[in-house]
């Protein structure tokens, strides 16, 4: 569907749209569809879903708002955007929650039908903001989306009024598609596929009709004086797909399975925001992926150890509370020196905390959260696409060093999407695996002198029968040993082995001058905000440098040098300073923490401000 005549068109490099409504009304879908259409169109993009812990929180309440923010651009971008250009607000609560994010003179498309007296009360509005002056700073477009959708669907007589009304998210999406010149085809295909289920087919045509009607309505009514064009971004040439962090991990693990020749085994227990990893992997039975939904996280950790002992590429995933439960058994994997990967898609804590919100506060737990001296490698993902690389790397290191590895992702990365440049499968490094088979001189804990890895000897191999467990083992033979000196030796072996992983870490890239006044150091999901802040500061004439580390344990060998070349090091973290604790301790450098504990990522503005305060 293309419409020929056009009102004035303005070109924009960068737009942030936010869709907001009650949870369960399809706002996540509208946002996601807008993102996909923009991706296919060739924009760079970044998304930020944001939803409550309840499945369908009470309609009209502030706590029940589900929103989806999409930023799309004709340039290379790294965050879902600090300021919203276009807000689609379906009711007062949606407006109230999102308004602080909307930039002055931004567009607000409101559904007037949602502004009932009851909804105003639920959103704690004394007066209707559509009637007073409170929205004067914005371009407000008031539309009765319910009425419009219903009348657009009046020919579908088998739909109840309520069912018809539910398509209003598509009507709104159609309007926004018009505003930004997005083609409808992709979403029409998606609707056709999505409702193609027993009893749901009747929703296909109405939803398509609502989408088209919205588009036509925007066109016909001349509601918006201008429409906007955001050209494709000059991304690196290649084939792309949109990916979120959880899918990135899944892809990386499957790639590691194929590249190592090891079948992938996954044991997990559902938990927000990590469940998607279990869900997606369960769809890859045709890639010989075996998934088991266990009775709890402890069982999942146990099963992962069992499968690793048997020679699978063995993986489990969870979020903070679930990882806490895994630690006792994970310590066994450390003692047994078995390769496996534990993914933690972090969320807000402590306890159940803010289960659908993001945080980086499980770093302490990852590095220090077990009893005894229980070292293991820890690495963090920094973008949805980076999740692929990190998962692949984690599997490689686990196998090469015969060690469990923790991968830290977070809710923001896990759910957020960005275009992912699909790698050439052939160009990915092979992951060499050597199962031990030589009977002569076999000892279960005789180490490779280079990596300190012990041999991986699988049950089923004649002549290598051996027993391993959680009691301290004699260096070499692996038999139970209570010998004092041996324990000290083994403790150091385990620590040294992890320390040697540092040899795998490429030089840390410093963007900006190699030395100077300020270095912004980051890890994990703060990548985009830090990069955007640094680029803006540079554009404003300041000299700041930035570096982002993937490895949290061991730390990169060049890090000390880098930190010491700067007068100030600022470390933004979505916690109270956890990485900072380790860096200060290790290098005795006065790293300064920038902390945020609001269940959402840093805006680049927040980081920019913090740097300016240092300059």
């Amino acid at each position, binding site marked *: 569907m293309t419409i020929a005549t056009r009102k004035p068109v303005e070109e924009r490099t960068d737009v942030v749209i936010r869709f907001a409504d009650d949870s369960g009304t399809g706002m996540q879908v509208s946002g996601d569809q807008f993102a996909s259409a923009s991706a296919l169109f060739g924009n760079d993009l970044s998304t930020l879903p944001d939803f409550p812990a309840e499945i369908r929180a009470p309609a009209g309440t502030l706590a029940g708002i589900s929103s989806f923010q999409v930023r799309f651009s004709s340039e290379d971008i790294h965050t879902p955007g600090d300021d919203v250009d276009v807000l689609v607000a379906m009711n007062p609560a949606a407006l109230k929650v999102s308004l602080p994010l909307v930039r002055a003179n931004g567009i607000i498309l409101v559904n007037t039908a949602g502004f009932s007296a009851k909804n105003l009360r639920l959103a704690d509005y004394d007066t209707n903001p559509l009637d007073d002056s409170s929205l004067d700073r914005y371009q407000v477009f008031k539309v009765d989306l319910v009425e419009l959708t219903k009348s657009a669907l009046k020919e579908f007589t088998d739909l109840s009024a309520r069912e018809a009304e539910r398509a209003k998210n598509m009507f709104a999406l159609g309007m926004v598609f018009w505003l930004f010149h997005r083609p409808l085809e992709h979403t029409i295909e998606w609707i056709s596929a999505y409702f193609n289920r027993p009893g749901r087919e009747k929703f296909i045509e109405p939803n398509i009709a609502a989408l088209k009607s919205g588009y036509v309505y925007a066109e016909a009514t001349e509601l918006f004086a201008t429409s906007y064009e955001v050209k494709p971004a000059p991304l690196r040439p290649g084939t792309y797909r949109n990916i979120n962090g959880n899918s990135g991990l899944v892809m990386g693990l499957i790639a590691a399975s194929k590249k190592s020749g090891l079948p992938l085994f996954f044991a997990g227990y559902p938990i927000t925001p990590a469940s998607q990893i279990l869900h997606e992997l369960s769809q890859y039975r045709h890639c010989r992926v075996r998934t088991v939904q266990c009775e709890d996280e402890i069982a999942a950790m146990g099963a992962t150890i069992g499968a690793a002992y*048997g020679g699978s590429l063995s993986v489990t995933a969870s979020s903070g509370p679930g990882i806490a439960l895994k630690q006792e058994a994970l310590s066994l994997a450390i003692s047994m020196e078995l390769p496996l990967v534990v993914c933690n898609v972090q969320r807000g804590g402590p306890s159940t905390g803010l289960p659908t919100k993001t945080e980086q506060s499980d770093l302490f737990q990852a590095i220090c959260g077990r009893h005894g001296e229980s070292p293991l490698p820890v690495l963090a993902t920094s973008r949805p696409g980076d999740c692929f690389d990190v998962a692949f790397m984690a599997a490689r290191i686990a196998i090469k060093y015969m060690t469990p590895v923790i991968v830290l992702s977070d809710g923001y990365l896990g759910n957020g999407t960005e275009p992912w440049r699909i790698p050439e499968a052939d160009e990915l490094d092979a992951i060499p695996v050597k199962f031990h088979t030589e009977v002569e001189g076999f000892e279960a804990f005789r180490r490779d002198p280079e990596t300190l890895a012990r041999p991986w000897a699988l049950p089923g191999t004649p002549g290598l029968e051996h027993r391993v467990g959680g009691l301290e083992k004699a260096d070499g033979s692996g038999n139970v040993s209570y010998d004092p000196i041996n324990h000290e030796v083994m403790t150091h072996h385990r620590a040294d082995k992890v320390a040697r992983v540092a040899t795998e870490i490429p030089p840390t890239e410093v963007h900006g001058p190699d030395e100077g006044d300020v270095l912004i150091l980051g890890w994990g999901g703060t990548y985009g905000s830090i990069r955007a802040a640094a680029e803006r500061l540079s554009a404003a004439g300041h000299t700041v440098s930035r570096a982002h580390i993937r490895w949290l344990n061991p730390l990169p060998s060049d890090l000390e040098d880098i930190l010491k070349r700067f007068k100030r090091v600022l470390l933004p973290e979505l916690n109270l300073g956890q990485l900072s604790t380790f860096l200060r301790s290790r290098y005795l450098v006065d790293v300064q923490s920038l902390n945020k504990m609001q269940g959402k990522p840093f805006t680049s503005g927040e980081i920019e401000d913090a740097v300016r305060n240092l300059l």
Partner: protein
Amino acid sequence: MAIDAPPAAAEAAPPLTRADFESDQIVRWCPGCGDYAILAQMQRTLPEIGVAAHNVVFISGIGCSSRFPYYMDTYGIHSVHGRAPALATGLKASRPDLDVWVVTGDGDALSIGGNHLLHICRRNVDVNILLFNNQIYGLTKGQYSPTSPIGTKSYSTPTGSIDAPFNPLRIAIAANASFIARAIDRDLKHLSEMIKRAHAHRGTALLEIYQDCIVFNKGAFAPLSDKASKEDRVIYLHHGEPMIFGKTRDKGIRLDGLQPRVVSLTDGAYGTADLLVHDEDDEHGTLADIIASFQEREDFPRPLGVVRDVERVCYEDVLEQRVADAVEERGEPSLQELFETGDTWEVPEHPAS
């Protein structure tokens, strides 16, 4: 098989002997502990079953009994407290070719590990579970366990325990365990037979073994093994046979509605034909549950033998089938194909703008 494990040695190997299953580790149980007898019997029985040592994996939790794997010259994992069934599930689900055994204690299996035991039973993973029940915590030096009778005086219950014990067999039945049996460390022939039966069964096999902890709970099962009393205190179960016991096979068990009763076969009131006939193939587990309940009833003999043996599909078999079906139906994609599933788009060498 999922993993390309190295193939077994090609030449026909000589039959294995007990010694082939003895590891080089010194056995570290208290002299006189019932664990010794069970270990020896396992080492004797495996060659009779005819398994290859390198295909066998013993997985245990923590406890005296859980030291078992160290002494078997097979593969083995001495894991963490209570979690052996979870490890076994992961191993067996990924390596159905292996012969997987779990060794656990009454505390390991029923206190900290109770949930994993339930879940492995309901999934019916093909694992043989040997539950060494000594009605006490041995390794931690004598606290009461979930199978200790009410009133057990132990370090943690100096005036006697107050919680009612579990009946491990009933728990397993409730979780629909497809094989349930009981043996005792003092009747080795029978124990060996039970080990063979458990092994022969496909699916989760729970074998409870009464085991004497001579240090902290000496003689807990003495009435069941002492010459003087045992024939009146034990009933051996035989599939399809009436339930008879007693020194002179003078007593039997009959059903009175849903209540089992011990009856005399000598006073003329009842004969063999009136007795309950054992049926291992007990789909709904009702008979099994009644048999398991004997121990809660006064003057009833303790059943030893196979309580239940029913066919149920194994978890890992279905899982394998699902994988095979999916590969068959959907084909195994190349990595590149996988990467490119779903909506993709091309960014050309020189983008438009």
